[in-house]
């Protein structure tokens, strides 16, 4: 390990990155790798979004117009997998790569070479997953939850490729998480205590622990599927002594912490942005840390609320119902603290702040529909309807995705040295905000009225809301091309950003010049008064 550190030292003498494409292939620089993650994430966001637009186009009217039901199911599956593993997770890992070392005053990630591997596994994983679309029998068609035996006994031959792709994504996430934990625990600037870290670092530390706890379980469950398909075992085959319900338990033991993996870093981002534009310190810093830790702990013991309808004993249902509702308490603490931070602040509404406020409002709506779903007796009505679709899209799109966009606008001047165009940024925000609500809000209504999820056709009474929803989808989808344009325009030029960038910004990353030099904090910062935002 000391060899690696010496190598880094050696690198310090070249004051910039290598030239050409090989810079990106061989790079061990946390900023380069962060950039790679963010671009991969954006590409996957557009790909998964394109699948979603085909789905919404098919649902524009009742009846089958554009795609066959078999292909529709493949799109549903790939949309889910690509958005979860390809868009949201790598975006947060990219942000962590860029920001964690700069926020804690470290020169780089603790394990730079492994950092390179964990990124470069991903393009192969997603190439493998996407290639199943062109295979005989088509892509996986059983939804992103790949319930057995639908996926084992009845899945297409390409299921094996899907399994190996999930293995690769898992390995990448685990390596990335280990790297983040080691960096945070060992490379903080001398004198920086854990409770001095910015909340984004805290939320990522906790998220990384969640990842190393549950990604191996996901790897385990797909390995069991692989063995059921190819080696004649019967983990999930009742005929051979296995149990299909077991699959759901193991899957959701991974799956529920997974949803917090996708939202905790978002909490960290919003906790950085709101204080900056309210020009106040974050209200209740330590309660934020404890709330995050509580949510992470609770996420391990509530998984079966995804499967109330498999017929559980009454005691089980009551336990999972109340435990799930308990999560509303630490989450409520967080929402309260964000609102209290804004209270009587000198607020301004630049693009990152708009996205952050929209996050607080819309994530809360998604959280409330989650509470409705947690009510076991009511869940029998909501289960597998569009109400569930509306719920998790409200927490994931105006939740996680908005926080990522907020983060990009907020730190882009630090990354590129140029200010983005505020008018364009605000336009992008309003298009996205209006689009997302037109897209997902009507889905609550069709869901409550009984429209099932994952179907290419529907009863006539759902037609109007579906048409509205599709219009919103195209508005939101095409707004993201505009986002791409804004980002590229900012990279190419614009008003020069100061080191501080934002008048009210706090944190070590704002003490270094904009754009951030290729190597930062090669000597640890002395003054830590700036440390937590």
């Amino acid at each position: 390990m000391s060899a690696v550190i010496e190598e880094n030292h050696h690198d310090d003498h070249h004051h910039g990155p290598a030239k050409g494409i090989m810079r990106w292939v061989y790079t061990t620089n946390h900023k380069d790798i962060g950039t790679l993650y963010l671009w991969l994430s954006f590409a996957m966001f557009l790909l998964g979004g394109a699948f979603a637009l085909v789905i919404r186009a098919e649902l524009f009217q009742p009846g089958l117009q554009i795609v066959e039901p078999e292909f529709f199911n493949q799109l549903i599956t790939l949309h889910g997998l690509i958005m979860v593993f390809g868009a949201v997770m790598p975006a947060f890992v990219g942000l962590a790569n860029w920001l964690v070392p700069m926020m804690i005053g470290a020169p780089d990630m603790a394990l730079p070479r492994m950092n390179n591997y964990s990124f470069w596994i991903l393009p192969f994983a997603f190439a493998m997953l996407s290639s199943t679309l062109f295979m005989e029998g088509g892509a996986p068609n059983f939804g992103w939850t790949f319930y057995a035996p639908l996926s084992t006994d009845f899945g297409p031959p390409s299921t094996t490729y899907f399994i190996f792709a999930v293995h690769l994504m898992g390995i990448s996430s685990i390596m990335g998480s280990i790297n983040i934990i080691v960096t945070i625990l060992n490379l903080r600037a001398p004198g920086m205590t854990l409770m001095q870290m910015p909340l984004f670092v805290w939320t990522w530390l906790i998220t990384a622990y969640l990842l190393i706890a549950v990604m191996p379980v996901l790897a385990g469950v797909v390995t069991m599927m692989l063995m059921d398909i190819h080696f004649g075992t019967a983990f999930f085959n009742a005929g051979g002594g296995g149990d299909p319900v077991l699959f759901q338990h193991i899957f959701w033991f991974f799956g529920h912490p997974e949803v917090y993996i996708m939202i905790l870093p978002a909490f960290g981002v919003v906790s950085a942005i709101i204080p900056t534009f309210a020009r106040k310190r974050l209200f209740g810093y330590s309660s934020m840390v404890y709330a995050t830790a509580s949510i992470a702990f609770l996420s391990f013991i509530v998984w079966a609320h995804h499967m109330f309808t498999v017929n559980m004993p009454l005691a089980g249902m009551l336990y999972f119902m109340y435990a799930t509702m308990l999560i509303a308490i630490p989450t409520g603490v967080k929402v309260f603290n964000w609102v209290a931070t804004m209270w009587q602040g000198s607020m301004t509404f630049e693009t990152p702040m708009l996205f952050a406020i929209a996050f607080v409002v819309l994530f809360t709506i998604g959280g409330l529909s989650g509470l409705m779903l947690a009510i076991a007796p009511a869940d029998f009505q909501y289960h597998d309807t569009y109400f569930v679709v509306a719920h998790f899209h409200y927490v994931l799109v105006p939740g996680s995705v908005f926080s990522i966009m907020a983060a990009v606008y907020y730190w882009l001047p630090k990354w590129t040295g140029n200010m983005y165009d505020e008018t364009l940024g605000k336009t992008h925000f309003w298009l996205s905000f209006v689009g997302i609500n037109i897209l997902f809000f009507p889905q609550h209504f069709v869901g409550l009225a009984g429209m099932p999820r994952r179907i290419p056709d529907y009863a006539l009474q759902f037609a109007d809301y579906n048409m509205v929803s599709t219009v919103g989808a195209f508005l939101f989808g095409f707004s993201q091309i505009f986002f791409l344009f804004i980002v590229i325009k900012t990279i190419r030029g614009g008003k020069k950003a100061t080191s501080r960038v934002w008048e009210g910004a706090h944190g070590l990353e704002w003490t270094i010049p904009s754009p951030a030099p290729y190597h930062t904090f090669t000597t640890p910062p002395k003054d830590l008064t700036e440390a937590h935002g």
Partner: protein
Amino acid sequence: MSENKGGLSTKRTTLKLLSVTVGMFAFGFALVPLYDIICDVTGLNGKTAGQYVEQQNERVVEDRTVKIQFITNNNGEMPWEFRPETRSLEVQPGELNATNFFVRNPSGSTIMAQAIPSVTPFRAAKYLHKTECFCFNQQELASGESLAMPLRFIIDADLPKDISTLTLSYTLYDITEQISGGLASN
């Protein structure tokens, strides 16, 4: 923090985290037997236990009768005819009962089958003791062959008072492929 010390603790932390990862991978697999144990203990999922050995002086509750219903299902494309001799029985808890299930293979080929039982209400599962059940074995029928398969069971005298009806459901699986592959683990 000196660089050397930093390097050492990086290695140590990494190894610790790697062992957590390996441990959680193992835990994922440990969930399989754990789940079976939990199901056996609680009767969760309506799983019934294995073969029961009748005790010498089984207590019979003479003043109570319980209705037990029998349901048969075929999984997927399983072509066998499969039906119980009787749809339901009135039995006394503690007494040994016997009934038969009939199967016939109307298809043109030899098929291996495995029946999987399930009891509702779930909490009654652990009170249904089977001293003999065709579900403990696999059946093989050539084309056109038929078979009467015995089931002998005792309903535990401790069956909760509020349960007056049990339903025992069997689902028949075609396991020919798994067996001929020679790879079946169970």
